[in-house]
């Protein structure tokens, strides 16, 4: 059993210096309600290391200019920094080319982009789009909007009691009417890592493209879009220790080329006359207006930092935290874990008998512990498990075993107060 083992031994085995990593995150060394901050809301957003903060500061101190147009020195420097961030993203997810990497505001905008361009073009009345029961609202509503407009149908792959997709049901849903499958790589409310390769293989046997919502997967799993063979992949910078307001849409070049533009404006055009406008080449065709230049550079810096620490090491360490936390809090009477798949990212959702998640959240806040409570923008998942909400602790690369113990002790206290 993990709990009984000597943690220092395990830490040594993992070759992971969490104290050194923590020193790179200045925000962590503060008190909340007089207690040291225990930040366990990483699935909502991660904290940013100094390396990212410095990259933002450096950009605004020394490089700020608009990109792609100026002939002056700063503009060229800013352009180079922005475009080198794109190359970092390309390498990070092993895309074939940098023209397959589109900067967006975040995962939500990436998904909306595909719905409003790809689906607007290919979707006909009576067609199907397939999603799953564990999707975040941002991977439900964009499809509902376009399905309503095109009189198409949204079909949903159900989940089982462990919070895993029922693949046999997916095989029943998919048909020649299916125009796109869009599923979450790793669930934000259950933690489940879905068998996305299997899903992609099945979909491709029907010539159906697949979009992966990788918002929660990107900071935990090594993503290789060529190996996965996904058609689209969306994620956000801020869940990867980067800034908010920047995200990525990866798309296979043949799809992107055939898609109409998303928004009109500067940077996405090649030539504009009042009679006819020709669009810029990829990826700029989908990047109308001045982008979040600093955000892109910050995301590039976050990728550098995560690569430097090592995504495999981070994942192994987070798995260890999850396993320890799961085992420990499971001993609490009246606690039920929601999402019990064997293959999970470090997300731990739970409900306490007789204590509402919001009360849990407020109590833990006074212990310095930040967790998320509510439906986590996955109301269908709550309905599936017949619960109004859950409490969710989610671990990042800087969390510690001691912090899990603080969470456990906090929960114990709550159970006493509400007994």
């Amino acid at each position, binding site marked *: 059993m993990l709990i009984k083992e000597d943690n220092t031994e395990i830490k040594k085995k993992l070759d992971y210096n969490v104290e050194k990593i923590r020193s790179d995150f200045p925000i962590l060394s503060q008190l909340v309600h007089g207690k040291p901050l225990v930040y366990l809301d990483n699935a909502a957003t991660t904290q940013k290391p100094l390396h990212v903060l410095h990259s933002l500061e450096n950009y605004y101190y020394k490089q700020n200019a608009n990109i792609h147009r100026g002939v002056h020195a700063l503009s060229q420097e800013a352009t180079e920094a922005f475009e080198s961030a794109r190359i970092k993203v390309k390498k990070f997810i092993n895309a074939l080319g940098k023209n397959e990497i589109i900067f967006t505001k975040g995962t939500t905008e990436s998904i909306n982009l595909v719905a409003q361009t790809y689906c607007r073009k290919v979707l006909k009345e009576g067609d199907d789009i397939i999603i799953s029961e564990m999707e975040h609202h941002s991977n439900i509503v964009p499809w509902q909007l376009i399905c309503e407009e095109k009189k198409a149908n949204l079909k949903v792959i159900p989940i089982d009691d462990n919070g895993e997709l029922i693949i046999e049901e997916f095989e029943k849903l998919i048909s020649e009417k299916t125009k796109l499958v869009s599923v979450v790589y790793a669930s934000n409310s259950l933690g489940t890592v879905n068998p996305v390769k299997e899903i992609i293989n099945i979909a491709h046997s029907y010539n159906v493209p697949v979009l992966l919502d990788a918002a929660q997967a990107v900071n935990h799993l090594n993503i290789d879009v060529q190996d996965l063979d996904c058609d689209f992949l969306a994620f956000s910078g801020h869940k990867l220790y980067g800034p908010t307001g920047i995200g990525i849409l990866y798309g296979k070049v043949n799809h992107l080329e055939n898609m109409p533009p998303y928004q009109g404006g500067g940077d996405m055009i090649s030539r504009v006359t009042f009679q006819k406008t020709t669009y810029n080449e990829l990826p700029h065709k989908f990047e109308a207006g001045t982008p979040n230049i600093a955000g892109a550079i910050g995301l590039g810096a976050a990728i550098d930092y995560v690569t430097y620490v090592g995504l495999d090491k981070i994942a192994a360490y987070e798995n260890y935290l999850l396993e320890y936390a799961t085992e420990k809090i499971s001993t609490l009477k009246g606690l039920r874990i929601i999402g019990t798949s064997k293959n999970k990212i470090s997300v731990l959702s739970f409900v306490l008998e007789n204590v509402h998640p919001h009360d849990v959240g407020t*109590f833990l806040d006074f212990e310095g512990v930040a967790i998320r409570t*509510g439906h986590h923008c996955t109301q269908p998942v709550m309905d599936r498990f017949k619960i109004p909400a859950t409490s969710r602790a989610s671990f990042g690369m800087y969390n510690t075993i001691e912090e899990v113990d603080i969470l456990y002790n906090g929960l114990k206290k709550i159970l006493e107060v509400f007994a």
Partner: protein
Amino acid sequence: MQQELRELYQQVILDHNKSPRNFRKIENPTYFLEGYNPLCGDNITIYLLVDENNLIKDISFQGSGCAISKASASLMTSMIKGKTVDEAKKIFEKFHHLITAKVDEEVNLEELGKLAVFSGVREFPARVKCASLAWHTMIGALEGKGEKVSTE
């Protein structure tokens, strides 16, 4: 427990959370309305039995929510039963002032009676909606925003 937390979760609130009063459905209510807080998924349905003199003869609730929203609904029903509709609205105004007043503002706790246990809520802006859900729902029901059940 720390001071602010103890003020929010007073014993009376914990008691009402554990054993809520009037937690039942009224068959053939004069008014009922489901109140919903989309932020947290809390939902509370208020049932009212009002006679021809605008006297609230019975009031009850059902639903799910946090300790603050459940205790608030429970205490509200105990407080409002036997009052007239106008009196109920006046109590709501006082209660609303209590939970939304500025932290340093003085509030007359005496005239609030048992409801004074919610004085800690104003320290927690994120929880004001929890405390007020049942009340807003009751007012909405009385103002006929919900389904008025015909007695004919």
